[in-house]
């Protein structure tokens, strides 16, 4: 029985009710500590996911060598693919671990699931990485609508349904980091001082486009475009198109990058003409 797809859709008949599955996990006690691999074996029932398996390991962290280890540290919260917390690399693919069903990724008795932290963000411990760089990027592109305070000033601008549909698709971004993990241009820049010189990535580029599409949000359009015209900006995209393939929310990231590229070009030209 072969694994069908990476998007969690089961295509074959259900596997046996209980079987043994091994979890080979890349562990690390802290930043700059040595990496080691540990393997745990679990009895798996139907309907489990990587989360339920990590929970079982936490309750009884004994490796296949009989060594008593410690619970694996990992990041998760909603367990239903809306919060973006549980990103990790599973059998070489970056994805959310809550939607990684064992019946799909390891359907046979004796299968192994390999778990690793994302490689593009500094490891805090085990599978938990520090993605504060993504939130910093949102500040750099001013990913907000500059309203006049939280006073009652009536409704926002009217909006056509088709425009709402475009904005909604972009606004589903849950800052999970899959796009950055898959991007060949995005580097691990462990230190904050390196962030401004390193490619900002699809996530922030798409968010910039989102806020430029809003009537009030567009007040900050020139600020956003300026932020994306540097050596870390949109020109660094190499068009690999990995981002759009791995995005769990199917956000049209390459469309966003193209749109931002076009906007920055027009903006640069208009600046040149206006002399500002």
């Amino acid at each position, binding site marked *: 029985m072969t694994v069908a797809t990476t998007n*969690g*859709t*089961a295509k074959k008949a259900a596997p046996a009710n209980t079987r043994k599955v091994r979890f080979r996990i890349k562990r690390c*006690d*802290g930043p700059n500590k040595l990496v080691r691999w540990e393997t745990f074996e679990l009895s798996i029932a139907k*309907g*489990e*996911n990587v989360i*339920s398996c990590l*929970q079982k390991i*936490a*309750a*009884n*962290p004994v490796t296949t060598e009989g060594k*008593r280890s*410690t*619970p694996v*540290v990992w990041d*998760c*919260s*909603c*367990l*239903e*693919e*809306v*919060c*973006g*917390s549980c990103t990790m690399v599973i059998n070489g693919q970056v994805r959310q671990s*809550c939607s990684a*069903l064992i*019946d*799909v990724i390891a359907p046979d008795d004796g299968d192994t699931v390999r778990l690793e932290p994302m490689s593009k963000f500094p490891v*805090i*411990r085990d599978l*938990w990485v520090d993605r*504060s760089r993504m939130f910093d990027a*949102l*500040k750099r592109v*001013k*990913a*907000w*609508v*500059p*309203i006049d305070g*939280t006073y009652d*000033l*009536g*409704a*926002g601008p*009217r*909006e*056509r*349904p088709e425009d*709402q549909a475009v*904005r*909604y698709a972009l*606004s*589903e971004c*849950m*800052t999970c980091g899959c796009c950055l993990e898959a991007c060949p241009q995005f580097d691990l820049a462990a230190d904050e001082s390196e962030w401004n010189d390193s490619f900002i990535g699809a996530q922030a580029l798409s968010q910039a486009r989102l806020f430029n599409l809003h009537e009030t949000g567009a007040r900050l359009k020139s600020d956003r475009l300026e932020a994306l015209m540097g050596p870390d900006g949109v020109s660094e995209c190499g068009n690999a198109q990995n981002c759009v393939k791995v995005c769990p929310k199917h956000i049209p990231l390459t469309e966003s990058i193209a749109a931002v590229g076009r906007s920055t070009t027009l903006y640069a030209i208009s600046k040149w003409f206006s002399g500002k």
Partner: protein
Amino acid sequence: MTQQQRVIVVGGGLAGLAGSARMAEAGLAVDLFSLVPVKRSHSVCAQGGINACNEVARQQGYSEYEHFDETIYGGDFLADQHPVLEMANWAPRIIDLLDRMGVPFNRTAEGYRDLRLFGGSLFKRTHFSGATTGQQLLYALDEQVRRLEADGAVTKYESWEFLRPILADGTNGPRCVGIVAQDLRTMQIRAFRADAVVMATGGAGLVFGKSTNSVICTGAALARCYQAGAAYANPEMIQVHPTAVPGADKLRLMSESARGEGGRVWVPRKKGDSRPARDIPEAERLYFLEEKYPKYGNIVPRDIATREIFDICVNQHMGVDGGNQVYLDLTHKDPEYLTRKLGGIMDIYQKFVGVDPRYEPMKIFPGVHYSMGGLWTQYTAGSYAPSEPQPAHVSGSPTACDAEIGRGMLPGAPNNMMTNIEGLYAFGEVNFAFHGANRLGANALLSCIFDGLFSGVGVANYIRDGAPSTTPAESIAQSVFDSAVGAETSRQKTITDTATGGDHADETNPYIIAKEMGEEMTAGCTVVREEKRLQKTLDKIAELQDRWARMKLADGATWTNQSLSFARSVGDMLTVAEAMACGAKARKESRGAHYRIDYPDRDDAKFMKTTFVTFDAGEGRARVEHREVRAELVAPRARTYGKVDKEEPAKAEAAAAGV
């Protein structure tokens, strides 16, 4: 207000973010603490929508007052009424504000905000953004707070855990002057001074093991305030949603529109029948809701559906494969139709269960979903003071009260949503206010944002005019803060000292203790309650508390020790569980979500009262009393189950769709 006066907000969901934005605007320095990056808060999970009166509904005869009346009735008359009126009056303004912030609300052809029908009302008064309204509202507030953060007005402490409130002596009793918190990466424990502290830490679903809550919703923060002297109100009021999808790790919400669109609930007639669903012929299927309620069938109201499903599985042992699950079957419908009407939720089921509900029946079971109870809070009533409580509002008739600001609560009053501890506030799900004994669908997103925006002003006024103006937190002796840090450091050490390696018996394994707590609470303290069964639950909690006191930690690391944080929370969760079970035992009636098989009727004379629980530190136990509900605005009436369902099935679809 001097430069140094600060407010701490614990929790970065809708309530915490709305409060942070409003208080920063009022000139306070805001320190915002969250277990996770704030845009990953549990508010992100809400699907359904957010309620508010609106122009279309208004012209059809609806009003803010009717929204208020619906909410009081939906809550089975347990909520203090004034805050609900203020919330309903503010609701349209809140939608407008979130709209201005950029929330991509669904739009009509003309470009106005679209509306849908939802549980508890015959009017379209629910605004939505795709299938992820909570996420979109949360992101809008997250963006506004990020802007304030960029300006230096808000400082965030993400991946920090709140450990306890710090109390100093005030003129009228203890006063909150800060918190002790821990950086979950470095494990550093330190004190933070503040002139007021706002708890916005959500509900306590994890106490039940599996729920629709995120893993961060432990109720530990509430427990830590409660153990410091804050009162816990109506802890027994827990909403159990009828249709959740059981999973190995959590219960995922399956929207009620599935039943509204014709979904049928059934189990095999033969106990333990192990045949696949499609092999069981019609005659051998027990459509128990249809048989027991011939008039409403599968779209009986939420409470009833939950109780029946529970009874079939837990008491009659007739669940699918003998387990806690029943079939929710849509396979008799046209797959194209299902994709069109219910595509989003079909996808969720398929993604997490790996089965296409168009061709195979879904397996569902009721799941703990929302905590109506929480920290007790007070308020100052507003200008609406009828000479006597009003009867049920009739749609379209003149409203007993208009929608002006300040009718329900006095805006800016420093005690709005303040707990019984001076300077300690509760906003959002952790606040017991608004929802009484049962929350109306799509009212939670509203109450959380309302708390932050409305009562945030009161916090600023308290700091400017109250005790902090004469004795700011900055002036309180350092020893107060040091001793609080010392207490937490020593509590932690007691736990980490147990990490001596060696065997981890289930007896002392915190993960197993938590699992047993969840199983016991789900079995004994959710849908159907009874005196002796609740006592059994309390006995089990006592046993688990004893085992927890002897627990052994599996990880003694001094860096990013996730299992330490979890193990410590288990003790707090047991404290919450005890309060819940005590509250349930003391309420000898049935009301809203609280159903006692030994007291099946509502008893207004004895129990139209708030369960008010305080922690007896000496005994280590809950102390339960009952306090008067402030019910001056609407007179109680029978909560007849047929009321929203007596219209044709088209309307019933809407009524059943409350999430």
